[in-house]
């Protein structure tokens, strides 16, 4: 039964008493900008001359990325022994960095898929860049497990491809599940990102063609796959987007769940704990939003995108960071509590050792960055200070790297056999390899900024008051959704 039909008869007298107290919603695009302004603003980033800062950053990023190339080349040429793993810590830097990057890769799909399903329209200003970030983070994450197999040319053994060697993958290992989870996640993330790009690529095609740049016009046209903006195109697009959002939502949750299983299915004290799956997912969202803030705030300042990434957007991101950081804090607390309550001496030792052992410095960095830092976001004054928000977002990134380091290294360094206890320190090759991934990530992100629209223009326009068929001035909320 439709709403109109329902309200037409028997409307109760209570409706005559309804008198909402005025409290306007925040606008999602400020200063009453037009559709044309948005197109010009976003396309202008791509069409304009390449700025000097971009070249400087690009060269620096390429230089930093070369550290990963050098580190991996040396590893392949020499063997995995060049990494600092030694008994009892036979698993450290590679898996720490894998989980760190894959966690960052969660925010993009979360913003695109889950916030889409939850009809959170504020996501439109940040979802494109966050999706790009996801893909680039997955690329960085994938490097570590692929190369940690040692003889990387045999990495394809991870896939259950029938072969004459009678190799049968260990399907009982969560590391094998990771292969499927991460590759599926990467594939769907690329698809999701690409589908969302189609209307915007067509705009760029038309603009470059009109400006006489036929090569770029052709290239954008090729990737726009013949998009003409017809009703049928939009209809198919909307359905595809919704289906991909539906598929991505369980995927985004499953990937980090399986990453948590890498540890939780084991018997290692500090790893085997039932809260790991939701705790890892919350941590991934936390770190993902930390990285989104780290990337979007400078982008906003450089390209003067304050009308599109408003204070309201920053508020929302800060609040999600606060909420997920607090959930992570709850999980830390529960782990500690159950380590005591469980009365298992090994579990108890593992947690006492984390907080007061040789790696206590790492533990307290983790607690400070992941539990204390986000609490600053309770305060409006902090959220309104973009420089401070950016600095705090860096702390979140640092803290989440240390979380993985603490979980993995502290439990292994003090195993069941005291005579084998050790202290893990990364080798210079490991440090170079990880440091370089920031360059790899930055190179990809800079290329994205330069050649692809950093925001979904069509989606942005749909949340503006002008898109509201009822003419509501209540920007962002009177609009009839994602009906472009």
């Amino acid at each position, binding site marked *: *039964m*439709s*709403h109109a039909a*329902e*309200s037409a*008869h*028997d*409307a*109760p007298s*209570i*409706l005559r*008493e*309804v*008198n*909402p*107290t*005025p*409290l306007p919603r925040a606008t999602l695009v400020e200063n009453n900008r037009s559709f044309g302004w948005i197109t010009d603003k976003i396309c202008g980033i791509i069409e304009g001359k390449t700025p000097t800062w971009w070249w400087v950053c690009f060269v620096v990023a390429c230089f930093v990325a070369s550290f990963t190339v050098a580190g991996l080349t040396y590893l392949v040429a020499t063997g995995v022994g060049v990494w600092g793993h030694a008994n009892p810590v036979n698993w450290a830097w590679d898996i720490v960095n894998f989980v760190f990057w894959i966690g960052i890769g969660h925010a993009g799909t979360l913003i695109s898929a889950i916030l889409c399903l939850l*009809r*959170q*329209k504020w996501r439109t200003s940040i979802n494109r860049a966050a999706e790009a970030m996801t893909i680039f983070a997955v690329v960085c994450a994938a490097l570590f497990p692929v190369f940690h197999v040692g003889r990387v040319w045999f990495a394809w053994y991870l896939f259950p491809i029938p072969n004459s060697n009678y190799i049968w993958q260990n399907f009982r290992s969560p590391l094998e599940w990771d292969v499927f989870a991460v590759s599926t996640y990467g594939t769907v993330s690329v698809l999701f990102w690409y589908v969302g790009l189609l209307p915007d690529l067509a705009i760029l095609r038309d603009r470059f063609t009109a400006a006489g740049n036929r090569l770029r016009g052709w290239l954008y046209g090729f990737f726009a796959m013949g998009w003409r903006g017809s009703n049928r195109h939009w209809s198919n697009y909307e359905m595809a987007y919704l289906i991909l959002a539906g598929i991505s939502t*369980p995927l985004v*949750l499953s990937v980090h*769940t399986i990453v948590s*299983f890498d540890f*939780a*299915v*084991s*018997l290692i004290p500090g790893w*085997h*704990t*039932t*809260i*790991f*799956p*939701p705790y890892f997912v919350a941590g991934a969202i936390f770190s993902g939003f930390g990285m989104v803030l780290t990337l979007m705030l400078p982008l906003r300042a450089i390209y003067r995108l304050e009308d599109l990434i408003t204070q309201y957007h920053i508020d929302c991101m800060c609040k999600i960071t606060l909420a997920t950081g*607090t959930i992570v804090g*709850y*999980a830390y607390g*529960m*782990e500690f*509590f*159950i380590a*005591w*309550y*469980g*009365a*298992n001496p090994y579990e108890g030792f593992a947690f006492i050792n984390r907080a007061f052992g040789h790696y206590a410095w790492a533990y307290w960095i983790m607690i400070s960055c992941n539990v204390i830092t986000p609490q600053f976001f*309770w305060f409006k004054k902090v959220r309104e200070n973009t420089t401070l928000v950016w600095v705090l977002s860096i702390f979140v990134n640092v803290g989440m790297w240390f979380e993985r380091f603490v979980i993995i290294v502290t439990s292994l360094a003090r195993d069941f056999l005291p005579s084998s206890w050790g202290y893990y320190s990364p080798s210079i090759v490991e440090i170079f390899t990880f440091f370089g991934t920031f360059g790899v990530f930055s190179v990809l992100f800079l290329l994205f900024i330069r050649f692809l629209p950093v925001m979904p223009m069509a989606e942005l326009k749909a*949340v503006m008051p002008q898109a509201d068929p009822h003419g509501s001035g209540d920007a*962002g*909320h009177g*609009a*009839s*959704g*994602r*009906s472009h």
Partner: protein
Amino acid sequence: MAAGAPAAGRALVIGLAGIALTALGLLVSGGAKVAFSWLVALTFWGGIALGMLFLVMIHHIFDASWSVVIRRQFEHGLASFKWLALLFLPLVASVYFAPGAVWKWMNPAYDLAQVGGSGTVGEDVLWAKKAALLNPTAFVVITVLSFGIWIWLSARLRAASFAQDADGDLKWTYRNRVTAAFGLPLAAVTLTLAIVLWVKSLDYHWFSTMYGVWYFAGCVRAALSMGVLIMVWLWVRGDYRGVLNANHFHSIGQLMFAFTVFWAYVTFSQYFLIWNANIPEETFWYNLREMNSATGFANQWKWVGMLLLFGHFFVPFFLLLSYKRKLSRTQMPWVALWIAAIFLLDLIYNIWPSKKDGNGDALPFLQLHQVWTVTAVIGVGGICVWAYLRSFPTTKLIPIRDPRIGESLTYHESSAD
């Protein structure tokens, strides 16, 4: 709208009758078994109230709009907390007058041979390590503190919301946001502590970090189910005609679907990680619910577990996938009732097997004592429904001055928030 008064009276009579019948059980089955039934009833109705508390606070913290017209019913539901606290008193009294009857660790002299063990609780090294928490004083303090916090949060949320009906002042909206901001972590911590002490510690050797999250998931599912039942009841009565539209039903159905998946995710993760690690310190909790150690055969609880797997996940999952069903005012109450009933079964599954025989095996699921579970659920439920119906006529049907009430009344599927 004032028709709540006679209905409230009926609910009170039913509640008191249920309590009286449960009291009769003391003579038939003994205090310990009745206390287990009473605990099931309190964690069931308390869970619904807690779920409503979380939903109201989540509503405020998100500045949500579509749920404004439903929120008022949850606020009425919060009126039950003080009565639940009162109804919890017999269990608190058992701490002093019958220690060990429900929670063995209350009595260090408890002979563990009665439940297939050896020695006394006081000689049990695992209890000794946890004694700082598992002792009568901590139990009473945490119980009082938890109920105190829930009652206080509920009172703040209700008072501000009701006051806004009269003066339309925005300060009430802001006050509720602040209450929700500090209330959510407070409620999360107290819920966890309460369920650890009340239920998990029944088998005090067992532990799981997921337990608080499991109870939270169940509470919200049950509260949403109760929300659907109230929505349909008020719709049929005519109060909600012209107020609710199809999209409100669709959205609450979507939330039920989301929490169905969340519950399954949490429950599966807990089971899977314990099964896979296969550590006896953890697996015994599930073994107790699968087989009889004396015979080696599957016990009745195994089939309850299977029913939970299919009934608490697969059935509602497939039922709630349907868009049309979520809009159906004839089918959704049945789905809601089913979820609420299975939440009750889930609690029975978590609580009752801790009542063991001399071999250390769980008492069978189907026995006379489950009658007292039914009467206790009816008794406590009657009081909770009475508290709701008593609160119902004291305010407007919907928050008429809420800043988002307009958006809620005109809510359509593609609206934001």
